[in-house]
């Protein structure tokens, strides 16, 4: 089982790296935010898998904090951090 946990953790990490392309590319700020939101969820899954593989039990608590903060980041983004005027190429 341990091999499966670690393999899946690496697989999810590769997914995360692929998602990085969307953060760099955009085109709108919202797209970048969506990608980081997916990173948060993937990170939760990776941490839980590593904890189950017996790396370090406290990783479950780290995952819990990630899950808690995920909601806050989105609200903070929409209310405060989304620029009112995007660059010209961003709206299409």
């Amino acid at each position, binding site marked *: *089982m341990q091999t*499966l*946990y670690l393999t*899946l953790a690496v*697989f*999810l990490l590769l*997914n*995360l790296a*692929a*998602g990085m*392309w*969307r953060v760099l590319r955009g085109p*709108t700020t*919202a*797209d970048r*935010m*969506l*990608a980081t*939101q*997916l990173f*948060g*969820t*993937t990170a*939760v*899954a990776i941490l*839980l*898998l590593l904890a*189950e593989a017996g790396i370090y039990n406290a990783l*479950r608590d780290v*995952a*819990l904090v990630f*899950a*808690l903060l*995920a*909601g806050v980041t*989105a*609200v903070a*983004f*929409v209310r405060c951090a*989304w620029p009112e005027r995007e660059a010209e190429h961003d*709206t*299409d």
Partner: protein
Amino acid sequence: MTLIDYLSSLLLLVGAIFFLAGTLGLLRFPDVYTRLHALTKADNVGLGLIITGLALQSESLAGAGKLVLIWLLVILAGSTTANLIAKEALRRGVRVWKQ
């Protein structure tokens, strides 16, 4: 390997496939709204299946409860995010994709 092990391996694998689909959707879909659709699938179903798989392996009820709590928090965050971002994007006139 016991039957529980097989069941949880299956759940973990299907969960990972949902994450792959979510990432592919995020990369390939044409606008914010469709990408939002891909993202929420990975959030809810992908993590849900992985957490179910791990909860089957958990030795105590409290451990499984913690995993379910994490899942509920992610679902709450995911649905709030989807709603807020889609509404705000519409208000700001981010164009909806048509063919």
